[in-house]
């Protein structure tokens, strides 16, 4: 497995920042913000699903926790947006730890883990939908007020920069994983839990840490979502769409790789916009294409676009040699 260097990551982040200020139209700016939010959610998924091999179908639980923390803290308690962001991220980690504690203690993995995460997200959705504290079914509206302390900007390029910054943190976390004991342990337990245990890996503790980090990153995406769209309800924050989108982006881009989630999010959402233009208003076309891409990428490029690009890059000179 080839690993990107820190410098490469820096260049990518810098390039994103440059694009942000390259005079994009509002539509493209908005799309890029959404791409970054999904990329961040996917980075979170990738820690658990990619590196640790625990496929979650319920990352909406973390996304929603972040989004609701952001919205409730600001609207009900007048908490500063930045502090709300930090608390939201912490809450994501906490929710992760809660779900993790219950499921990992029972040794759930594979299909069972996918199912239980799905169920937790659904329970969260139903609760948020019926609880007055979370605005019930009406959801929560955030006040539009621009300025640095409100984490809202009249010029949305600044907000885009903040989302890029968060994605950069996600990249660094993944990069660190690939260069640390913790990351090696994650991969080890993904590949073979027993063998990892035999080598002294405290599997439960490692999984707990992984789900907490994973939850925190995806919760950050939820926080940014709430702050960008200024309206959330239970179906937006805890709906299965975000669980699926996070998983899609990570897998299509390359699960268990540093750049996979980011590339996956950009490609998928970009493609979604394209198909919207091409489908001539036939409903469901964009998601239909998503589904086909997912199946194709599992079938023909199980390691994602990142690896596909690499292998194509490696194969090309080899062919040249033959010729």
């Amino acid at each position: 497995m080839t690993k990107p260097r820190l410098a490469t990551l820096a260049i990518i982040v810098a390039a994103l920042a440059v694009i942000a200020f390259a005079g994009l139209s509002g539509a493209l700016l908005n799309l890029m913000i959404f791409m970054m939010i999904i990329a961040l959610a996917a980075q979170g998924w990738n820690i658990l699903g990619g590196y640790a091999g625990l496929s979650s179908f319920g990352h909406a639980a973390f996304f929603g926790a972040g989004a609701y923390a952001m919205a409730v803290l600001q609207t009900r308690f007048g908490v500063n947006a930045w502090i709300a962001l930090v608390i939201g991220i912490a809450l994501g980690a906490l929710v992760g730890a809660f779900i993790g504690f219950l499921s990992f203690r029972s040794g759930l993995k594979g299909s069972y883990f996918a199912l239980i995460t799905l169920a937790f997200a659904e329970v969260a959705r139903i609760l948020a939908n019926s609880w007055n504290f979370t605005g019930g079914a009406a959801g929560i509206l955030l006040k539009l007020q621009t300025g640095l302390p409100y984490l809202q900007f009249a010029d949305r390029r600044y907000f885009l920069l903040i989302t890029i910054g968060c994605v950069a943190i996600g990249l660094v976390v993944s990069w660190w994983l690939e260069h640390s004991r913790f990351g090696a342990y994650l991969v080890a337990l993904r590949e073979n839990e027993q063998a990892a245990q035999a080598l002294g890996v405290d599997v439960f503790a490692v999984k707990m840490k992984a789900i907490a980090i994973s939850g925190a990153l995806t919760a950050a995406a939820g926080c940014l979502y709430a702050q960008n769209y200024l309206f959330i309800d239970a179906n937006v924050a805890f709906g299965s769409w975000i669980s699926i989108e996070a998983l899609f982006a990570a897998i299509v881009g390359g699960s268990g790789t540093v750049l996979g989630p980011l590339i996956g999010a950009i490609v998928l959402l970009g493609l979604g916009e394209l198909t919207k233009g091409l489908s001539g208003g036939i409903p469901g076309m964009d998601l239909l294409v998503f589904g086909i891409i997912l199946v194709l990428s599992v079938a023909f490029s199980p390691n994602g676009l990142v690896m596909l690009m690499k292998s194509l890059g490696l194969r090309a000179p080899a062919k040249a040699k033959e010729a």
Partner: protein
Amino acid sequence: MLEVKSLTKRFSGLVAVDQASLSVAKGSITGLIGPNGAGKTTLFAMIAGFLQPDGGSVSYEGRDITALAPHVRARAGIARTFQIVQPFEGLNVQENIAVGAYLHTPDASEAMRQAADIAKRVGLGADLTKGSSDLTVAGRKRLEVARALATQPKLLLLDEVLAGLNPSEIRDVLPLVRDIRDQGVTILMIEHIMQAVMNLCDTVYVLSQGRMIAQGEPKTVCEDPQVIEAYLGHGAAERLRAEQAHA
């Protein structure tokens, strides 16, 4: 160093290991043999902590470790290999070994350095960046041992490291095992290949149908009629002796 007392394990009514006891002296190579299905691997799993026994106890360096989780035992210095090799497929050889080395160092470059050293020691020095699935069977067995060694064990549990190897490969691995012992690691090994057992082990235990039926030096154990019967069936010892007398 390791004291196993009356370990018992039942699987839904079936007794897999029945009151088995053994002890391993520090610095020795101890063998555990027995016919297929005797319960050797189950006994191993209980010693390493992967299975909880239904009765009996395991103590290590004078401490009762019966209830400890496998990773805690690994930290205390017990490492094991698996009969069916279990490499981490997504990692290359060096990274595989480094997972073991991380037990004593959180530092990535240090772990990778140690991994390279150990790889050299077990004869995988040239394969550091190979994917674990690209190795030969013998290579994977070496990797299995290397990973265990990287945890700097005091007691190494080897589960049929020689199974599936051809005679020349076996000849190559035997000195490796001895070398490991000479470096101060105590070894308990399950082995089928008698040549290896006779060659390496100081003491041998024989497990049959979950019970420990014999123990002692390899040579004496091999002549034990009970052992022969366990391997070759009821009356076999009698027949064998008769044949020998005849010859």
